[in-house]
């Protein structure tokens, strides 16, 4: 039983449920305590110990019957209740059928379904090995049943009844026989469906080349497929929790600041000035962020994740404002942030495109910086961390280094996040190498792992 549970846990993990070793041990302990006698309780003891997220209940509910199902309802032997004569008649009637159909009727009347090997071979032929997740099992099952001859079953039963009647079997016996065959037919279909579901789930658990989020984290944004983007979008939620607890812990440790003389005197007035309570200055560690995002095609993915991350982490920053630029600069519209929050990255970018229409070679960083300095300079103060997220490919427009220098002087820090590799900086129309000396730090953020490290550094506030 333990093996089966461990297998089940592997199946769950393959379905995207995160289960630690400690939780698997808990599950085994729980089963030890409560036993496997009652299925409902067994199911609940596994769920309480393994699944800690109500979103994952669905995966659990899908997989549980596959791993711990009875393998479908049992089939009955129709021949048992027949007299010897009748059995002979049945055999004769069956032998008149052609190979594949004879086999099917044989299974249905004898109550002994196909053997495990036969099922596996059928599954193979139906293409079960190509299925990605148990939902696809329905298709495979249907295909398998068709191969087994289920679609001709109605006619077949009619034929068989007729032939048995001609042979002189009693109406009563025929009806009984057909009743059993009908029941067995449903049982067999159910058995096949369960077998296929299980097989697909197990295959998935064993497949090593499935989409692994930790690998995806290191895959460059530019190379991500739509499906992989989806996986990562879900991953962001977990990433945010991690970043947030790291930032919070850091702030907790950093709370012990310098001695606060004024605060101490004030706090101890109630003790007649005897200094009982010591007050420490709280360090202001929550940074205030201003984010300038290049929204050209080449940076879409990185901008989406950056905005998503910073938006989710807004309780870790004291203030946050973001701007989008392309050929000119606009404040990031509110509905874009809402769409991003709903994980609708494409719709969000459509909204931005409506305001900043796309045209080839349109990026003009110099102009955008000029607009920023004219209209929004007041957002940058001595406490602001200014972040520019873009590839600095300026289409040979003026880079306006002077404005960047000015901004760097005004802000607490100026950080440049570039989605290109460092060796590509300065090649072609990239002005990155000119910008780098003006920045307090410049990082390359080619993938989600690098991006989350960069955001983590931003939150440290120094």
């Amino acid at each position, binding site marked *: 039983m333990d093996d089966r549970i461990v297998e089940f846990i592997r199946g769950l993990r393959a379905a995207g449920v995160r289960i630690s070793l400690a939780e698997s041990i808990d599950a085994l302990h729980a089963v030890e305590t*409560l036993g496997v006698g009652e299925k409902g309780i067994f199911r609940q003891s596994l769920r309480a110990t393994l699944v800690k997220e109500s979103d994952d209940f669905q995966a659990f509910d899908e997989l549980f019957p596959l791993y711990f199902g009875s393998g479908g309802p049992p089939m009955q032997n129709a021949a048992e209740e027949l007299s010897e004569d009748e059995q002979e008649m049945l055999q004769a009637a069956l032998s008149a059928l052609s190979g594949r159909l004879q086999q099917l009727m044989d299974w249905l009347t004898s109550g002994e379904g196909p053997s495990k090997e036969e099922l596996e071979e059928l599954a193979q032929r139906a293409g079960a090995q190509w299925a990605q997740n148990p939902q696809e099992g329905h298709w495979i099952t249907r295909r398998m049943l068709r191969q087994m001859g289920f679609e001709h079953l109605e006619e077949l039963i009619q034929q068989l009844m007729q032939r048995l009647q001609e042979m002189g079997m009693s109406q009563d016996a025929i009806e009984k026989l057909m009743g059993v065959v009908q029941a067995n037919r449903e049982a067999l279909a159910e058995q096949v469906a369960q077998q296929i579901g299980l097989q697909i789930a197990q295959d998935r658990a064993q497949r090593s080349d499935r989409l692994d989020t930790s690998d995806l984290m290191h895959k460059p944004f530019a190379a991500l497929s739509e499906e992989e983007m989806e996986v990562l979008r879900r991953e962001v939620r977990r990433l945010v929790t991690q970043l947030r607890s790291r930032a919070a812990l850091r702030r907790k440790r950093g709370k012990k600041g310098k001695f606060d003389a004024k605060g101490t005197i004030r706090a101890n007035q109630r003790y007649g000035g005897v200094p009982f309570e010591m007050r420490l200055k709280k360090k202001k560690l929550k940074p205030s962020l201003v984010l300038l995002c290049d929204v050209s095609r080449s940076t879409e993915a990185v901008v989406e994740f950056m905005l998503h991350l910073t938006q989710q982490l807004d309780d870790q920053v004291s203030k946050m404002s973001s701007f989008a630029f392309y050929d000119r600069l606009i404040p990031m519209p509110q509905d874009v942030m809402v769409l991003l929050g709903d994980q609708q990255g494409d719709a969000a970018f459509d909204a931005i495109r409506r305001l900043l229409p796309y045209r080839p070679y349109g990026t003009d960083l110099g102009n955008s910086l000029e607009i920023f300095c004219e209209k929004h300079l007041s957002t940058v103060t001595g406490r602001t961390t200014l972040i520019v997220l873009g590839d600095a490919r300026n289409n040979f427009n003026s880079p306006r280094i002077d404005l960047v220098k000015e901004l760097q002087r005004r802000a607490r820090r100026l950080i440049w996040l570039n989605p290109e590799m460092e060796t590509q900086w300065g090649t072609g129309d990239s002005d990155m190498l000119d910008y780098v000396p003006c920045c307090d730090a410049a990082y390359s953020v080619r993938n989600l792992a690098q991006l989350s490290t960069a955001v983590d550094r931003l939150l440290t506030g120094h």
Partner: protein
Amino acid sequence: MFQDINDVRERLGQQQYIASEEIGTVVYLAQSLCKPILAEGPAGVGKTELAKAWAGALQNPLVRLQCYEGLDESKALYEWEYAKQMLYTQLLRDTLHDFLGDAGSLAEAAGRLAQEEDVFFSESFLLPRPLLTALTSEEPVVLLIDEIDRADVEFEAFLLEVLSDFQVSIPELGTISARHQPMVLLTSNNTRELSEALKRRCLYLFVDYPSRESELDIVRLKVPGLSPDLARQAVEVVQQLRNMDLRKVPSISETLDWARALVALNARQIDEETMRNTLTVLLKYESDVARARRLMSNGGSQRPGQRPGPGQRPGGGQYGR
């Protein structure tokens, strides 16, 4: 201590808490594996009540820690009672004077005082807060950590230490470990994601709105004054409201309030007028009330829209008061 799952359900039932099999299983497992329970689910489905019933069933005291934003260790664990320390120093001034009076130098006096400072940092000046109370209690307790999702992430990390070893260290007194490991129930309304480390240490219980039958059972148990016919109608209305796209759908506590209101108003049947007068007991937003009224005046001809969100799972938590 509970004998088995049925014992759990029975004894919770005696505390007027109708526990599903799921709840029974998880509570029993928490006891036998010595693990905290993390109960999640919408507000008002009886997560907090479960802790009360649990404590009642075991006849152990309940220690409750209500979480809120800004809750820190000193509010949750212990504080030094400054005022009392201050008062004692004032009252003992003469004794101190005698004690220190014959000291030759300031350094000697300070030295003597330092030897006695344990007096002022002893347990009698310690103000225990819920966590320390639960750890030092003479008998086993049920510790309810309510709405953990409202506390800051820092506090969650601190709680993790306490929940894994069941001991805390107080610099002046040393390490205090639990006399009896408390039974812990954490509740969360899922307003934010909890850290994985915390979830890993807990058994997970998702408490959802009850099915029609169990809700009817609860109403019958809690509001016996309501006629069975009316109770059925009332539950029916609430179940329908839950399927509507409302800002805040009524939970079990609101169903019970409404049932009590119906009894108080001596309602014979749930007609349009009774509905109009009492709908505000069930719905807490003006827009929701208006919406529900509009649908009701349509005579229910319009199918209520399916509420988006987590799937409707049968079973789940039951409320008791």
